[in-house]
């Protein structure tokens, strides 16, 4: 059996030249450093202001209140996401493999407790809030569900006037006071602090405010305006006119085409495809056909054209 021409390669007998990798590395480093500092001086860096819960509740108070309600009645994106936040659904799965479920709820989030009850409990007590929280905490699960259902049913007529959220119902127990106080807390900026500091002394864990923001429409609308949604190739974009992560073009490409563009498991499916393609790239020297591409395209003859010209002469 004859060996593949990609494997059986004649040893190089042409000319050789000295090569100083330290010198080349130093030149490359200096050029890149000058370019980096120069471009930073001229263009600076993206400076989009941070989106906060305070900003959200001030600019879109109804959206905030409706999202707080969704956290209470368990219909928010976080409440229904599954792993790693809860066990409400199987989460992302690749065919029959429920990968997210296997890993479990490693970052447990109880949307009622973490987004509503605990922040309200941390608030300086007012008679109305204390009474509402006492009523909520002392009620049975069935009673709480009945209150939240009554509020949800009337929430289509929710209004926001003079800093107060109103819903036309008398059957929602303490829920109107809780939602309204949470709205005021958010507008004062206290909710941003309460959600971050729940994690401990260091305030670098923004999981809760980010999840809360992502459950509403406000953050998504801002992302859409800035071309940052997954459906807008957002993974490779930066805010403003700055270049983004152009190298992620293939990763985000899959999200634009069926079946991934309509799949609920697109994240894990696209990850699976990229892992498969990465494996193919890693194994190029062992894959017949794929490893012959450099020989067929003959780009190497362009690079070493002097040698081949001399050889042909």
């Amino acid at each position: 059996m004859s060996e593949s021409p990609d494997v059986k390669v004649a040893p190089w007998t042409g000319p050789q030249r000295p090569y100083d990798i330290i010198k080349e590395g130093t030149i490359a480093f200096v050029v890149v450093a000058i370019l980096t500092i120069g471009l930073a001086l001229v263009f600076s860096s993206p400076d989009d202001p941070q989106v906060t819960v305070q900003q959200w509740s001030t600019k879109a108070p109804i959206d905030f209140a409706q999202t707080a309600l969704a956290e209470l009645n368990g219909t928010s994106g976080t409440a229904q996401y599954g792993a790693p936040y809860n066990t409400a659904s199987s989460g992302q799965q690749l065919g029959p493999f429920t990968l997210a479920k296997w890993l479990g709820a490693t970052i447990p989030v109880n949307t009622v407790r973490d987004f509503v009850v605990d922040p309200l409990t941390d608030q300086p007590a007012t008679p109305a809030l204390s009474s509402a929280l006492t009523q909520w905490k002392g009620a049975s699960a069935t009673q709480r569900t009945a209150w939240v259902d009554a509020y949800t049913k009337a929430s289509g007529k929710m209004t926001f006037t003079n800093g107060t959220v109103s819903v036309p119902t008398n059957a929602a127990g303490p829920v109107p006071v809780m939602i309204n106080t949470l709205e005021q807390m958010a507008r004062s900026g206290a909710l941003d602090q309460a959600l971050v500091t729940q994690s401990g002394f260091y305030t670098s864990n923004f999981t809760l405010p980010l999840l809360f923001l992502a459950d509403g429409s406000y953050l998504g609308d801002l992302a859409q305006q800035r071309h940052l949604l997954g459906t807008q190739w957002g993974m490779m974009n930066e805010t403003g006119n700055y270049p983004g992560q152009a190298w992620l073009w293939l990763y985000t490409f899959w999200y634009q085409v069926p079946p991934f563009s309509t799949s609920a498991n697109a994240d894990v499916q696209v990850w699976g495809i990229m892992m498969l393609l990465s494996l193919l790239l890693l194994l190029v020297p062992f894959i017949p056909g794929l490893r012959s591409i450099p020989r067929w395209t003959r780009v190497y003859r362009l690079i070493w054209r002097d040698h081949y010209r001399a050889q042909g002469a």
Partner: protein
Amino acid sequence: MAESLLAALVSLNGPGHYFHWHWIDISYANLTVIALMVVTFVAALFVPFPGRRHKKETK
């Protein structure tokens, strides 16, 4: 004062500009970077190595 010293000479923080074609949606900034990468690649193929004409290759 400090703010004006730190400000960029050319601000790119305005609304982004995007190129749409069918389902392709890419920012002009990313297109520019990709074009520069292609130009660099082509230059690496065709621009001769520095000193190639003068250095004597050794066998």
